[in-house]
C-alpha cells in the first residue's frame, strides 16, 4: 500500500527535528541520542525477527565488533594498537565487519530454525564476549579501548550535543525508512514469505538460506551503524558493552517496542532509556532490573505486539472510527505483519489474548 503518509508522521518528524531546541543538553544527548542509538541496534533485531522470523541475540555483538574496529584501526588513548587510519576508512570497514559477522552468524543459524536460532545466537554472543575479554592482542581484554573520538570534519565536532543528535537522527530515520522501503522490494517480500512458509518458498525455487543470510547481512549493517554511533557516544568500548545482559536488553527493547513496524524499536528504546534514567526516582537504583523485567514480562504476557500492539488495541476505542478500505489481494499479508516461523509455531499476533 503506497498510501498517503499519515499526518502524524509529519508531526513526529517535525517534533524530532526541533526536539534539541526544546530540550537541554542532557535530554538531547542522554535521552534523545542514546534512545536513537539503542533503537538503531534494536532495529537490526526487528528486521530479523519481525520480517524474517529469526530472533538473533548476536546483533549487539555485530554492533560491538564494528565498534571495536574504530579504536583498533583508528585511534585510541590506550596505547594498544590504534593504527591511526582516518575515519573515512575505518567507518566503512566497521560497517563491513559488523555486516559480515552478522552474515556469518546467519550462516551458522540458518540451518536451524525457530527457537534454536535464539539459543545458537545467544551462544555465539557469549563466546565472542568471552573471547574479547580474554584476548589482549586485538581486543585489549577486560579493559577494552577508551579515548575513541568522533570524526571532526573541517574542524566541526560531531560529538557536540546538537550535531550528534542530528547525526543519530539521520542514521536512525534513514535506516527506519530504508527498512520500510526494503520490506516492499522483491527481496523484502521474499524474506517475509520465507518467514511465513519456508517450505513453500523452497518449493517455488527460492534459496531460503540465501535470503536469510542476506537478511542477516543487512541487519548486521544496521547494527554496525548503531555500534559506531554507540562507540562515539561512549568514547569507549569494552567486553561489558557486548555482554549477555546488554544483548537481552536489546531484545527487551525490540519486543517491548513491537516487532511489527520499524518505529517499534525506537519506542522501546525511548521507554527503556527513560526508565533507566528516571527509575532512581521511583525505586532504588539496584532494583532497576526488577522494574524493567516486570515491564517486559507484562508486555510479553498481555500485549505480544509490544507497545505498538497496545496502541493498536487502544486506538479504535478512543479515536474516530475509520473504516479501512479493502486491500484486495494484498489483504491478509499487509494486515498482520511479523509472525514467527517454524511450522508448528502459532503466530504471535493472531493468538487469542488470554490476558
Amino acid at each position: 500500500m503506497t498510501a498517503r503518509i499519515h499526518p502524524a508522521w509529519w508531526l513526529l518528524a517535525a517534533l524530532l527535528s526541533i526536539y534539541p531546541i526544546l530540550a537541554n543538553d542532557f535530554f538531547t544527548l542522554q535521552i534523545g541520542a542514546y534512545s536513537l542509538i539503542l533503537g538503531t541496534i534494536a532495529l537490526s533485531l526487528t528486521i530479523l525477527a519481525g520480517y524474517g522470523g529469526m530472533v538473533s541475540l548476536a546483533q549487539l555483538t555485530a554492533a560491538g565488533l564494528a565498534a571495536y574496529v574504530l579504536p583498533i584501526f583508528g585511534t585510541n588513548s590506550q596505547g594498544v594498537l590504534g593504527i591511526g587510519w582516518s575515519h573515512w576508512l575505518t567507518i566503512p570497514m566497521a560497517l563491513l565487519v559488523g555486516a559480515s559477522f552478522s552474515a556469518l552468524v546467519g550462516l551458522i543459524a540458518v540451518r536451524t530454525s525457530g527457537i534454536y536460532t535464539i539459543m545458537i545466537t545467544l551462544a555465539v554472543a557469549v563466546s565472542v564476549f568471552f573471547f574479547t575479554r580474554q584476548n589482549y592482542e586485538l581486543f585489549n581484554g577486560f579493559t577494552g579501548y577508551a579515548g575513541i573520538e568522533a570524526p571532526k570534519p573541517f574542524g566541526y565536532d560531531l560529538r557536540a550535543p546538537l550535531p550528534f543528535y542530528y547525526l543519530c537522527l539521520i542514521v536512525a530515520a534513514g535506516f527506519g525508512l530504508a527498512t520500510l522501503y526494503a520490506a516492499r522490494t522483491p527481496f523484502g517480500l521474499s524474506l517475509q514469505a520465507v518467514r511465513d512458509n519456508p517450505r513453500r518458498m523452497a518449493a517455488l525455487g527460492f534459496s531460503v538460506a540465501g535470503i536469510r543470510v542476506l537478511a542477516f547481512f543487512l541487519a548486521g549493517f544496521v547494527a554496525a551503524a548503531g555500534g559506531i554511533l554507540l562507540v562515539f557516544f561512549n568514547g569507549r568500548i569494552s567486553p561489558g558493552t557486548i555482554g549477555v545482559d546488554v544483548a537481552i536488553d536489546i531484545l527487551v527493547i525490540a519486543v517491548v517496542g513491537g516487532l511489527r513496524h520499524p518505529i517499534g524499536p525506537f519506542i522501546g528504546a525511548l521507554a527503556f532509556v527513560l526508565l533507566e534514567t528516571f527509575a532512581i526516582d521511583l525505586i532504588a537504583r539496584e532494583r532497576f532490573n526488577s522494574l524493567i523485567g516486570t515491564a517486559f514480562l507484562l508486555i510479553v504476557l498481555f500485549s505480544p505486539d509490544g507497545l505498538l500492539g497496545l496502541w493498536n488495541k487502544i486506538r479504535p476505542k478512543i479515536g474516530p472510527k475509520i473504516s479501512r478500505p479493502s486491500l484486495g489481494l494484498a489483504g491478509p499479508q499487509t494486515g498482520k505483519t511479523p509472525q514467527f516461523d517454524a511450522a508448528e509455531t502459532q503466530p504471535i499476533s493472531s493468538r487469542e489474548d488470554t490476558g
Partner: protein
Amino acid sequence: MRPWAHPWRFALTALAALILIWLVLAVWPDWLQDLLGRKKTFVNTLLNGLTLAGLYFLVASGFTLIFGLMRNVNLAHGSLYLMGGYIGYEVAEASGSWLLGAAAALFALASIGAILQVVVFRRMQGDDLRQTLVTIGISIVAADLMLAAWGGTTYQFEPPEGLFGAVTLPIVSTIKSSGAAVFIKYPFYRLFVLFLAVAIGLGLWVFLNKTKTGMTIRAGVDDRSMLAATGVNVDLVFVLVFALGAGLAGLAGVIGGTALSIAPGEDVRYLLASLVVVIVGGMGSIAGAAIGALLIGLAEQFGLAYFPTYGVVLTFVVMIAVLAIRPQGIMGR
C-alpha cells in the same frame, strides 16, 4: 547399540577408550610427560571434567526433558538452579543437615516449577517464542530479587560429614626415586557428585523406559496430540515433567553449590551450560544430555588446564563444530 553395525566406528571408539584407560592407569614414560605435562594434572583435569559433566547433566537433563515434551525453552532454568542453591543453603544452615537442604531444594523447586507450568506456560501452550520471552523476563526479575534477598556474596555449603576430605585413588601418578609409588588424591565429595549424576541418570532412564508414567512421557515427546487423544491427561503429565525438571535443577543447585559455590551470575552460567549441552547433545534427549554434558564438561576443564586464555571459548567452538556437522545435535532427531 550393536557394535557390528558400524565396525569402524566401534573399533575407533574402543581404541580411544583403551588409550584413555592406559593414560589413566599407566605410569607415564618421559616422552609423554614432555608432551602432555604432569600426569597428576591430566588425571585431575579428567576427574574435574567428569564431575562438572555430572553437574551439567543434572541441570541439563531437566531442561531437555521439558523441551522434549513441551517444546518449551525455559530460559529461567538457570534461575531455578540458583534458587535451589539459595533455598538449600538456608535450610541446611537452619537445620544443620546437608541432606535436608538438598531435599528442601528439590521439593521447593519442584513446586515452583509446577506453579510456573500451571500459571504461566499453560496459558501460552504452543507459542514457543512467547514462552521463551516470558522466561527471559522471569529470569531477569528472579535474578534481581535473589540479589536483593541474598546479596552479592558467595555462599558455599559444607559437604555432609561422611563425604568430607580427600580419598586416595588407586592410580599411580609417579614413582619416586626411592621406588615408592605416589597415588593421586581427589576430593571425595566430587566423586560423590559423579556417582550421584550417574545414579540419577540411570534412575531417569529406568523411569522413562520401564515405568508407565515414563512411557506416557515418551509418547508425549513423540506425539502430544495423539497421546491426548488416547485419553491421557496431558496437562497433568506436563506439570509432572516440569516439576521433575525444575526439581532436578534445584537439587543441582545444592550439589553444585557444595562442589563449587553459589553466587549471583551462576544462573546465567548454568543456563548457558545447559543450552550448549542440549544443543550439542540434541534437544529432548536424555542420552544426548549425558553425551553433551561429558563433551562440554571435559572441554571446559581441559581448556582451562591446557589453554588457560581461551579455555572458555573452547566449549563454544565444540558447539559450533557440532552444529556445522549435525545441526540437530548428536542424539537429536
